[in-house]
C-alpha cells in the first residue's frame, strides 16, 4: 500500500506533466477556432489554391506561399541533407574519438545560434553574393535554402549519427571479417540498415525548415507571387504570419490563423511520417 505522501507526489507530477500536454491542446484549439471561420467563408479550395493574397480587398489565397514554403524546404534539403549525412558517417565511422569530441559539441552549437543571427548573416553575406554572382535581387529561394540548409544540419546529423551508432556492433565486425573495406561496409551494410533512422532524421530536419520564420523573413524577399526560378523572392507560410500579424485585424487576422492551420497540418504530417518510419523498424 502506498502512503498518502507518495500518492500525493505522484499526482502532483502527473498534473505538471498534463499541463504541458494541455498547452499543446490549448494552442491547437485556439488556432482552429480563430482560423476556421475564414476557411469556411472563403472555401477550403479557394483558400489553399487561391493565387491572390490581398486582405484589404478580401482575397485570401495562400497557394503562392505554400509553393514558397515547399520550394525553400526542398532547397534546404538539397543543400543540407548530403552534407549532414556525410558528416554523420564521418563522425560515426571514421573520426577518431578526440576529433569526434570536438565536432559533436560544435555541431550542437549550430543549433544554439539564434535564427535571427542566421538571417542577419544571410542578409549581409549570402544575399549580396547571390546578387553579385548569379543576378536577381539576391533575396531569393536560393538564399533561404542555403540558410535553412545550414540550420537543419544539427538535427539531421545528430539523429543520423545516433542511428548509425545504434546498429549492432556485429554488423561491422561481420562485414570487415568478410574482407569488406570500410567504405564497402558503410555503403552496402550500415547505411541500408540505418535507413529508417536516416529518413526520420531528414523528415524532422525538414519539419524544422518549414517551420522556421525569422531567418527566412530576412532573406526571402517575401513577395507574394509564384517564383519562376530559384533566384526569385518568395513568401512562405510562416513569414506571411510573421510579417502581417502586427497590423492584421478581423478577417485578415483570421486568415493568418488559417495560414497557421495549414502549416500545423503540414508539420503534423511530417512528424507523424517520421514517427511511423522509426517505429516500423
Amino acid at each position, binding site marked *: 500500500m502506498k502512503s498518502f505522501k507518495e500518492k500525493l507526489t505522484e499526482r502532483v507530477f502527473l498534473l505538471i506533466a498534463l499541463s504541458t500536454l494541455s498547452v499543446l491542446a490549448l494552442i491547437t484549439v485556439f488556432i482552429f477556432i480563430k482560423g476556421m471561420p475564414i476557411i469556411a467563408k472563403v472555401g477550403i479550395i479557394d483558400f489553399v489554391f487561391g493565387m491572390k493574397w490581398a486582405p484589404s480587398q478580401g482575397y485570401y489565397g495562400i497557394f503562392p506561399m505554400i509553393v514558397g514554403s515547399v520550394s525553400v524546404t526542398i532547397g534546404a534539403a538539397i543543400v543540407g541533407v548530403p552534407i549532414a549525412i556525410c558528416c554523420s558517417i564521418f563522425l560515426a565511422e571514421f573520426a577518431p574519438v578526440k576529433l569526434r569530441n570536438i565536432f559533436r559539441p560544435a555541431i550542437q552549437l549550430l543549433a544554439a545560434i539564434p535564427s535571427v543571427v542566421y538571417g542577419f548573416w544571410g542578409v549581409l553575406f549570402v544575399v549580396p553574393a547571390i546578387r553579385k554572382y548569379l543576378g536577381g535581387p539576391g533575396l531569393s529561394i536560393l538564399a533561404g535554402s542555403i540558410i535553412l540548409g545550414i540550420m537543419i544540419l544539427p538535427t539531421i546529423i545528430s539523429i543520423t549519427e545516433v542511428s548509425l551508432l545504434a546498429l549492432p556492433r556485429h554488423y561491422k565486425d*561481420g562485414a570487415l571479417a568478410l574482407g569488406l573495406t570500410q567504405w564497402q561496409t558503410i555503403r552496402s551494410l550500415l547505411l541500408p540498415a540505418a535507413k529508417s533512422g536516416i529518413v526520420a532524421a531528414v523528415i524532422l530536419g525538414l519539419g524544422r525548415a518549414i517551420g522556421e520564420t525569422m531567418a527566412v523573413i530576412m532573406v526571402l524577399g517575401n513577395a507574394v507571387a509564384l517564383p519562376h526560378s530559384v533566384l526569385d523572392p518568395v513568401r512562405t507560410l510562416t513569414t506571411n504570419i510573421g510579417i502581417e500579424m502586427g497590423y492584421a485585424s478581423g478577417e485578415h487576422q483570421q486568415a493568418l490563423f488559417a495560414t497557421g492551420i495549414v502549416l500545423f497540418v503540414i508539420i503534423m504530417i511530417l512528424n507523424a511520417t517520421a514517427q511511423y518510419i522509426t517505429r516500423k523498424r
Partner: protein
Amino acid sequence: MTQKAKIDIKGLNFFFEQKQVIKELNLEIPENRILGVFGPAGSGITTLLRTLNRLSDLTAGARQEGEILLDGKNIFDTNVNVTELRRRVGMVFDVPTPLPMSIFDNVVLGPRMGGMKSKTDLEEKVETSLRMSALWDDVKDRLDTPAARLSGGQQQRLCIARVLALEPEVILLDRPCSALDPISTAKIEESLVQLKEQYTIVIAPHTVQQAGRIADRVAFMLMGDLIEQGYTQEVFSFPKDKRTNDYLTGRFG
C-alpha cells in the same frame, strides 16, 4: 610437428591499454588440421583469434608485439593488405552475426564486394558454400528470405557458409556453438571435420569436450599464458602441467 605450419606465432604479446592480455605466446598452427584453443573465459583466446586476421586493429587502445607468420609472411608488415588478409583468414563469431539482408545476399556479400559479378557464378557460390556448411537442404527453397528469420543454429551455419564463400585458407571460429542446441552443434562439428581437408581451422571451443571431439591438436591458455599444447589425445590423457590437469578435471574454470 610433422604437418607443415600454416601459421607460426612468434613471441606474441598483446596489450589492451595497460593490461597485458596475451603474454609471450609461441604457437604453430598446422595446415589442414583443427586446432582447439581452450581455457577459461578471460584467457585471451578471443583476442588471439581476432589478432590472427587483425580484427584486433578495430579495438581502440590495443597494440601488439611479436610476429604472426602466415605462410612465412608476417601479417603485421606495413605492406600487408588487411582486407586481403581477412579474406584469407575468415572468422566466425560466438554469436551468429547474420547481416540484415537475404540469405543469398549474406553468402555472396564477400565475393560480390571482391568483384564477382556474374549471376551464375554467385548462384553456384551460394550452393557450394551452403552445402559445405550443411545448410543447403534447409534453405534452398527460400534463399531470398531475410537471414534473421533462420534459427540460431542455421544462422551460425550461414555465417560459416559466408566465410567459406570467400575461399579462405584459414577459418577462425570463436566459440561458434555457445548459443546453439546439441543437434545444431553436432551438424557444425560434422561439417568442420570435413572442411579440414581443404582448410586450416582454429576453433575456440565452448567446452573442453568439444575440443576433444573435433580437434587434432589443442592448446590450453590461462590468463594470457599458453600453458600447454600438443595432440588432443596426449594433452587430454596425460597433461604435463598441473594447471591443465586441474582445468580438464574441472577443479577450476
